């Protein structure tokens, strides 16, 4: 079965670099046939010029070329575009070269002669990392990632989705807690029934009680009709209680009773109604601290916190930022029925290294702002900088802010470079000695950022 039989036609710009015209012709033909836009260069210098002009999404280069060889070319490319994926082709299965290429940040190392399907699969995998490493489509189509943090989290979430266990999601505002809750619902046996979300911190206590448990006609002033409430509306499905930490203490008692008895009694009613609802709750607060402070009931905390899941901050998963930006570009273009725009490679690098106090929600807003303000097809670095400057950061003392920023930044570059100190130092514009000093100052261990070896 050919590549084209199993994979949808792909899009994206590929620059092929080889000093052998027959290889350039062959690889360009394969790429064009699969739907990619192929550009060619027959030497390293020509390749660097093409990267500036043609803005490829990925580079495929031969290792042995006269003048600038493939390894030098990778270094040059990553000097200006640290996140640009590069696939190396070599006529020799030479392990030291492959190791050097990997250390320099090469995405894949293929030996010539290369088979068409193997070649196209690698290009597709690295130009669109989501195709191989993010959601497989069966769990959370809106969960976009390639990071190990999110892979681990979704694996846990998929497991708990199958059962009927109460799930508690902790994470900062904007990290996508509701997206995860919905993914759990969609993957559960309850998926044919409603998923209903309510923000417990956004509704006044009296209204929230009625909203959740319902009320009888005339139960209180203004209750002109009977209201069944969200527990009953979600019957058979999932009720997502967002910002549960903000729920008033008085209501916490009533919620605890519902979770113990699995029945609700609408306001003004003398009769309880059985419910069949799965509860997924979430908060950005530290509930343990709220329990200690007497602001959250300990018994309710343990009732809700059966399976705890933690959504990472966006800055903890910088390798997902290019994927998420791409996801939002596609989504927003489809919504506006407009031609999809692209970020310039240096703009993507800047996005990946930013701090994102507002997490994914902030990233989406920045992407939308950039799309709105960019006239051409490519969103430049200057636009991203402008969009990010418009977002106020959380206020800290200058010293703390600097320390937080430096530590997060170091973690980000180590993640991007898979723990490779030489590459990380290069991105950070430091020499290795200075970079090691910084790592020591923040007690960071580069080795802990290396992905486990995949034996497959």
């Amino acid at each position, binding site marked *: 079965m050919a590549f084209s039989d199993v994979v949808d036609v792909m899009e994206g710009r590929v620059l092929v670099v080889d000093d052998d015209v027959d290889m350039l012709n062959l690889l360009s033909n*394969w790429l064009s046939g699969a739907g990619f836009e192929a550009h060619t260069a027959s030497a390293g210098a020509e390749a660097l010029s093409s990267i500036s002009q043609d803005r490829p999404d990925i580079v495929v280069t031969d290792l042995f070329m006269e003048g600038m060889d493939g390894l030098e070319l990778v270094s040059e490319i990553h000097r200006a575009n640290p996140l640009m994926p590069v696939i190396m082709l070599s006529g020799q299965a030479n392990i030291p070269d492959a190791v050097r290429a990997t250390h320099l940040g090469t995405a894949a190392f293929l030996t010539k002669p290369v088979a068409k399907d193997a070649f196209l699969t690698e290009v597709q995998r690295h130009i669109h990392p989501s195709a191989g490493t993010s959601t497989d489509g069966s769990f959370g189509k809106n969960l976009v990632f390639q990071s190990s943090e999110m892979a681990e989290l979704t694996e846990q979430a998929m497991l708990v989705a199958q059962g009927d266990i109460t799930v508690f999601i902790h994470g900062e505002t904007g990290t996508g807690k509701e997206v995860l809750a919905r993914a759990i619902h969609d993957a559960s046996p309850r998926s044919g029934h409603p998923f209903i979300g309510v923000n417990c911190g956004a509704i006044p206590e009296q209204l929230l009680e009625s909203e959740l448990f319902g009320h009888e006609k005339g139960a209180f002033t203004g209750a002109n009709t009977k209201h069944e409430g969200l527990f009953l509306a979600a019957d058979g499905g999932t009720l997502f209680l967002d910002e549960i930490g903000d729920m008033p203490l008085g209501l916490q008692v009533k919620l605890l009773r519902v979770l113990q008895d699995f029945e609700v009694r609408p306001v003004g009613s003398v009769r309880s109604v059985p419910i069949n609802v799965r509860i997924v709750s979430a908060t950005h607060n530290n509930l343990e601290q709220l329990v200690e402070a007497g602001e959250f009931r300990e018994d309710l905390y343990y009732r809700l916190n059966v399976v705890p899941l933690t959504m990472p901050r966006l800055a903890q998963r910088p390798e997902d930022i290019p994927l998420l930006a791409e996801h939002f570009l596609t989504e927003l273009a489809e919504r506006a029925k407009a031609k999809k725009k692209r970020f310039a490679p240096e703009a993507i690098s800047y996005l990946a290294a930013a701090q994102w106090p507002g997490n994914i929600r902030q990233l989406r807003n920045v992407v939308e702002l950039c799309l709105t303000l960019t006239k051409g097809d490519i969103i430049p670095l200057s636009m991203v900088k402008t969009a990010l400057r418009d977002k106020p950061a959380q206020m800290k003392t200058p010293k703390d802010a600097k320390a937080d920023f430096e530590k997060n930044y170091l973690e980000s570059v180590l993640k991007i470079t898979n723990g490779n100190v030489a590459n990380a130092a290069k991105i950070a514009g430091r020499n290795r000695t200075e970079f090691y000093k910084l790592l020591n100052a923040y007690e960071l261990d580069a080795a802990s950022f290396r992905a486990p070896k995949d034996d497959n």
Partner: protein
Amino acid sequence: MSDQEKIVVQIDPDIIELIPGFLDNRKNDVTRIRDLLAAKDFAQIKLLGHSMKGAGGGYGFDEITSIGAVIESAADAEDSGGISDGADRLEKYLSQIEVVAEQ
């Protein structure tokens, strides 16, 4: 097998239009290798063998990859006899092949 016997090579129809150019370049390689051998330019011969080895199989000609590898190694060892044999083997193979589109 006589010199005149044809060797049928099945080629991916998507690249069939590239084949005449690719084979013309290999015919030129035969001449260039012999000229370079006369000039004892083993480095250039090695590059030609290396390129042939890398591209042959991708186009569907595994034999060209194999001949390229032989020429590359022979050039590396400055083995004139081995290079000459490789050029002869390539010339003969090119005269025998018949390309058909893969069904």
